[in-house]
């Protein structure tokens, strides 16, 4: 049980980190998209 809890915590940490990374990537893509759109307008 101890192990499964720590595993869960590890998994949660990993997924949270991945989440953060995805959010950052999305921000960058959105910024690029907006830049491109500004360029066209």
């Amino acid at each position, binding site marked *: *049980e*101890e192990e*499964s*809890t720590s595993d*869960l*915590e590890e*998994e*949660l940490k990993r*997924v*949270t980190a*991945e*989440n953060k990374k*995805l*959010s950052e*990537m*999305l*921000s960058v*893509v*959105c*910024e*690029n*998209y*907006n*830049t*491109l*759109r*500004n*360029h*066209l*307008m």
Partner: protein
Amino acid sequence: MDCSSWINTSLDLNINPHRLHEDVPKKEVENNFFSLGMNKSSLKEEASGALVEELKRVTAENKKLTEMLTEMCENYNALRSNLMEYMRKNPEKELSSSKKRKSESSNNNNSIPMVVNGNSESSSTDEESCKKPKEEIKTKVSRVSVRTEASDTSLIVKDGYQWRKYGQKVTRDNPSPRAYFKCSFAPSCPVKKKVQRSVDDQSVLVATYEGEHNHPHPSQMEVTTSSNRCVTLGSVPCSASLSSSAPTVTLDWTKSKSSTKSESKNIIPKIDSPEVPQVLVEQMATSLTKDPNFRAALVAAISGKMLHNN
């Protein structure tokens, strides 16, 4: 027996699993659980249950983010390919408009808000990310060589168009300076001209034209004078450009004197270049002689030369 002695209702318990991640000391929680008659294993089950719930929530958010990112990337790529396509089709327009936009963006920092994950954010124009690759801008480049008299030191090539000189510089590879001209129709006309004396033969002026005129050839056209004769350089295509409607013709008047002699006998000079078949030359000559503009220009040139000699 009083029931209140069995159940303690003054502990202010909160068994909300999210509180496990807050500042409540673990021991205190455990004590609370124990005071409710719960053992240690059930507490761990609760904690792991909370973790599982949290994990599920974060994973779902992760999935949603991935989907959004994929969609955003698709949109971005579609927009980018559209822009590239547009730029490929209208290179000149894009060049002039991008310059305008650059100056506008420096004055007015326009930003389009975009909602990401519930948070509103805005971005400023980043010119570098949208810089057009230089290799995609394909401007038409042609080169013309003109023989001048030895005494003539000017860097003027008469081609019928009006030019405005905007610069001159000395290059490393060539001791004679290079002059830069713009078509007088600029900025609407993008054509530029560079003129420099040939390294091999200082009596030959080499004019390099960049771009295409977006206006007709001036009707009061000046034909090359006796001091200037049009010549081509090897592989680069060259147009004599006597008239905008006239077909492109390549003339070689400097390679040998015999060709100049033949010109005096025959209006149509014989072209020695092996790349141009004789049939094509004849076709070009026929179409040229049919062109009234060309004939008028030729008459003007000959009469001008005669007057000059007199």
